[in-house]
């Protein structure tokens, strides 16, 4: 009985215990991230507000980026190279969602992947769950994604192309898009803390990854023997899923299997991140 009484008292008094022996296995501490949600929001707001600070055009830059991507897709791949796409979908309508998802993915890995490095002065001075840093960058990416999506609606209106009713599943596609980017980003950010080498890998992933991902072309264009490599690419599955949501294109069951490595990468990434978190302030 006295045990329960003391336990209750402990809970009421919020006694925090830091024990070196507990540091080996780490819990996910989702509750802690929830407690620090105000900071998460503050970090995200800071990045959104300062992204276009002192520019005349401000958020218009995001629209310009979305538009440039559309122009490149339309002229270079649709008109000059004439990539063929399944069904009677106009090329830009087919390719743009791929670019949209890829841009979101690359934004997350380049921003969230370096987020710990950027905030090292804070990490050394104050405690907070460090997962908040890459997480807030992912939220910031959503703003650009929304702008790209608005631009996509404009394209659809121009082509008089109807959206599939499956658009209601788009949030799931976006969620997987975030998970794919986030799982790569937390691996990269945690590894970068220990080995700066990984910092230099990010531009490769962003710059060359787009060519081995079916962004501009449908998978059907590739020989059958290469399909396996497409299926294990986390972004290939995400893009196929988003296209399925928007355009009701065929969704190969292999892609869904391909989402499993993404989830594995995500879970292992969070685990590795939590392991490194304890020594971050010491070595960053």
């Amino acid at each position, binding site marked *: 009985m006295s045990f329960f009484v003391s336990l209750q008292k402990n809970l009421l008094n*919020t006694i925090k215990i830091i024990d*070196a022996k507990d540091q080996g296995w780490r819990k996910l501490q989702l509750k802690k991230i929830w407690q620090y949600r105000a900071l998460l929001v503050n970090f995200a707001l800071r990045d959104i507000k300062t992204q276009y600070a002192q520019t005349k055009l401000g958020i218009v830059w995001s629209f310009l980026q979305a538009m440039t991507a559309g122009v490149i897709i339309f002229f270079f791949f649709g008109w000059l190279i004439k990539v063929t796409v399944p069904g009677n979908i106009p090329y830009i309508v087919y390719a743009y969602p791929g670019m949209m998802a890829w841009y979101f993915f690359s934004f997350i890995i380049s921003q969230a992947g370096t987020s710990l490095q950027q905030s090292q002065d804070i990490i050394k*001075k104050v405690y907070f769950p460090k997962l908040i840093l890459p997480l807030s960058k992912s939220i910031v990416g959503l703003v650009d994604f929304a702008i790209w999506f608005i631009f996509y609606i404009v394209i659809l209106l121009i082509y008089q192309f109807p959206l599939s009713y499956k658009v209601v599943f788009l949030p799931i596609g976006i969620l997987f898009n975030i998970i794919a980017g986030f799982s790569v980003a937390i691996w990269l950010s945690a590894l970068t803390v220990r080995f700066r080498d990984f910092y230099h890998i990010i531009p490769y992933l962003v710059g060359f990854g787009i060519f081995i991902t079916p962004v501009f072309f449908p998978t059907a264009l590739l020989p059958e023997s290469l399909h396996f490599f497409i299926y294990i690419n986390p972004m290939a599955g995400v893009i196929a899923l988003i296209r399925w949501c928007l355009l009701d294109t065929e969704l190969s069951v292999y892609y869904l299997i391909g989402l499993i490595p993404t989830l594995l990468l995500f879970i292992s990434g969070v685990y590795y991140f939590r392991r490194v978190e304890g020594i971050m302030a010491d070595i960053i």
Partner: protein
Amino acid sequence: MEDIAIRVTGLSKKYFLSKKTLGLRFPERIKQLFSLNKKHDKSEVFYAIKDVNFEIKKGETVGIIGRNGAGKSTLLKLLSEVVEPTDGRIELNGTVASVLEVGMGFHPDLTGRENIYLSGALYGLNKKQINKSLDNIVEYSGVERFIDTPVKHYSSGMYTRLAFAIVTNIEADILLFDEVLSVGDLSFRLKCIEKIKQLAASNKTVIIVSHNTNDIIGLCSKIMCFNKGRLTDFGDESIIQKYIEKSITYDPKINTKDLMNDSEPEFKNLLRKEWPNIDEALGDEGMKIKKLYIINESRPGSESIFTNDKFSVNVEYEKFNDNEFYDIGCAISYMNIGFFGFNTSNSDLNMKNYIKRGTYVAKTIIEEHFFNDVILSMTFCIFKNNERIICYDVDALHFKINKYLSEEDTKHPKLTNSFTGPIQAKMNWEIIRK
């Protein structure tokens, strides 16, 4: 545990002094990359905190003193969960807020108001708490008009005041401050001291780290003294006395040598400056300074100066005409602040008497027991015809005044020797019985 705020048992923090990896060959680097955990095996181990145990009761104000590298800041980082302990256990009863840095997380492109919310969130304040103290912060910082302007347009004074204003409004059960008192201006210090007293009165626990004992005297009910990662003393204010005694006690064997702390880098006096080439020398066409030098008058030839030495400041210059007169000015700075100035025009000399061309030496003497044991730098300048300054040599000379301790002092150190400002002069006192 009810009346205890912090309990620390067997706490240690180990660091590895990493070996350099630059010279390694490529295969060795690859090898090192893959042996993740074993790479520390051969590196040197260093304990920033070693086997520390203590308990702090609720409502106590505790000051932590110790030299640089004694482990004070590491302890605060451990208590505030910034770094994790290698060994041991910390129990914290209540919410913790730590101020290891003032103005943390400030972003230059955000407005003052936005920065208050961001920085406040980092110090653990939620939106409600910040809203409550927002008026306070704005009023104290005095940036009301500019609160919606990006802080990069602030003057540095406004910026720091805003940063400090946030710090003084932090709320938690346990508050940790690292060297905060020693960085602000006087008004901030007073505000802080008032706040800390308020907190203590409302049963909050406050821990202050400082290497300046003056900050702690009178403010803290308990003192902790750290040395090389270990907690050497924990008790009431008498510990400060013990700490000061230790830091001023010295070994007679190194009597003649400079009394230097082994952790401080060696400081070299610069007591002489010459211009062999007269064209490069300080001055104008009518007058040139050829030499600046300081002579230890008590012990001629000595390169070091102790508090009981009398020393002279000498300026050797040459005049090239007979109609203009020049004054020489000196200023002595401590920690980049000039606090003591003297020049020939402020003396009984009339420079017009020395107007003829030729080489002169202007000399003045600084008496013994005037400066404290501090590092000082000396700036020289020349005034022409009492009209204008023609040239400067900023921080031309620099020197360290070493503390002189008599044999009596070594045996029975004086607490009164602990003043830390640049001047600790021997004055004529008289005592009258009424």
